[in-house]
């Protein structure tokens, strides 16, 4: 038994330090209110305190820390996108990821695995070459590889996929990685907490108040189930609840909510090192350090504001998994779940300033938000602190739809094109 545990058990005078400070009351005003204590909201809080010295901040969370899409994704991190905006943005994110564990003094189990996006047709292979060239142009390690390279990296895979959709090649992205998602929220949360930022869980935003500032509406406060707060700046980072928040301030957006489901198998011996994605078979899969296979597919086919699971999903995903990995026939699925993905028509996020002064959005992260957590925190904290959009997010504004200037990030959802 570890000595520390023994001491704790015997003396009862050394309670374990909690990860976060529990605040009994909300203050009557804050410089910044962040709605949503998921990875994105807490990362913004952390960088506001660390890089901008703004610590009079409250992070409000209706549920618990990291209980939304931060804890529901399949933890894949990559930057092999298609548009220049996308590639540069996610590449910055991957760089931030790589030394986050040191930054936090908390092990995120960041594990660089390599990432194969399989191509089953010549047309798909053409897209892979295109993505590889865009990536290389911006200094991101990506290359188009042949089927043999895939087979060498994953000897257990049936490269013919049961004969239905033989693999002809892949886009290989060496920096592709996985990390422990809860720890990301906790690390950012603890870092923000230690710098004086208040995290309030079980605190629901009921309404957002605006006043006329002379040059259009401006944020003046937030009403919660634990009382009213005055503030001039609100950052909204609530994924699937974004449309409801927008309706509180009278904004409309193209966001629509579809559930994204995922599932996990029982632990098996390590056999799958890289992350495998197949757009044609609607599968992405990686193996965790514990040996579980984490699997996801594409979005549910209709709008829904709930996190229910369906048997259809498990059946179709398992079927496609078996096409690639027939030997998994006896392996059991032990958990499945869903998150509410906030989708946009062009598969790029909606970030930055809005027509309401002091109201900042970090949304539209659909099925690709986890990997962007650090860079969203960085860019949104800059945007909130200076009231100017960070240069990396200028292509992602809400006003792009009004101007018909869509970003068109088809590499956004790895199985969505």
């Amino acid at each position, binding site marked *: 038994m570890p000595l520390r545990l023994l001491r704790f058990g015997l003396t009862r005078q050394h309670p374990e330090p909690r990860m976060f400070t529990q605040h009994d009351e909300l203050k009557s005003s804050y410089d910044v209110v962040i709605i949503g204590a998921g990875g994105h909201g807490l990362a913004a809080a952390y960088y506001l305190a660390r890089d901008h010295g703004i610590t009079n901040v409250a992070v409000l969370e209706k549920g618990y820390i990291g209980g939304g899409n931060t804890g529901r994704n399949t933890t894949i991190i990559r930057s092999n996108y298609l548009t220049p905006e996308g590639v540069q943005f996610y590449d910055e994110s991957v760089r931030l990821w790589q030394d986050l564990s040191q930054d936090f003094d908390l092990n995120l189990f960041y594990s660089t695995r390599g990432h194969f996006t399989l191509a089953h047709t010549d047309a798909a292979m053409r897209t892979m070459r295109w993505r590889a060239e865009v990536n290389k142009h911006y200094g991101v390690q990506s290359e188009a590889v042949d089927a043999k390279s895939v087979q060498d990296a994953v000897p257990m895979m049936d490269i013919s996929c049961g004969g239905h959709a033989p693999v002809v090649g892949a886009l290989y992205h060496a920096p592709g990685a996985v990390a422990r998602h809860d720890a990301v929220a906790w690390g950012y949360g603890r870092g923000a907490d230690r710098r004086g930022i208040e995290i309030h869980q079980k605190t629901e935003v009921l309404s957002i108040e605006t006043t006329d500032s002379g040059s259009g509406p401006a944020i003046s406060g937030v009403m919660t189930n634990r009382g009213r707060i005055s503030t001039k700046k609100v950052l909204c980072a609530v994924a699937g609840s*974004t449309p409801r928040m927008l309706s509180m301030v009278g904004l*409309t957006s193209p966001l629509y909510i579809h559930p994204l489901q995922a599932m996990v198998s029982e632990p098996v011996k390590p056999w799958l090192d890289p992350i495998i994605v197949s757009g044609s078979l609607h599968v992405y899969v990686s193996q965790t350090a514990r040996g579980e296979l984490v699997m996801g597919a594409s979005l549910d086919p209709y*709008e829904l*504001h*709930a996190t229910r699971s369906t048997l259809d999903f498990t059946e179709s995903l398992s079927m496609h998994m078996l096409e690639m990995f027939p030997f998994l026939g006896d392996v059991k699925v032990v958990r499945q779940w869903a998150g509410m993905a906030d989708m946009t028509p062009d598969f790029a996020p909606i970030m930055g300033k809005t027509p309401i002064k002091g109201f900042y959005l970090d949304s539209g992260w659909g099925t690709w938000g986890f990997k962007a957590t650090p860079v969203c925190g960085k860019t949104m904290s800059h945007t909130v602190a200076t009231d100017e959009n960070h240069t990396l997010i200028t292509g992602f504004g809400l006003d792009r739809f009004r101007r018909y200037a869509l970003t068109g990030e088809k590499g956004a959802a790895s199985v969505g094109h």
Partner: protein
Amino acid sequence: MKIMTCPINGPRLISEFAYAGELKEMPDPTQVSDEQWADYVFNKNGPAGIKREWWCHTASGVWFIAERDTTRDVIMRTYLYQAEVALT
């Protein structure tokens, strides 16, 4: 939500149906500004609630309207599209 009722073919498995988005009234493209047109094309009624949507029974090609509660994943009713119904 496993079973949906097609107004023509009766109750069927949900896998036979395709969702085609919320029912929207198209403004007259010759009359509206670019901004109003963008609002029609892109913006959606995003928050949860009971919504009126286009669905298609793909096996028979029947297009119809479904009223659905997006919070509880429950279909309230389905019926064939009629302009006067849609406008209410």
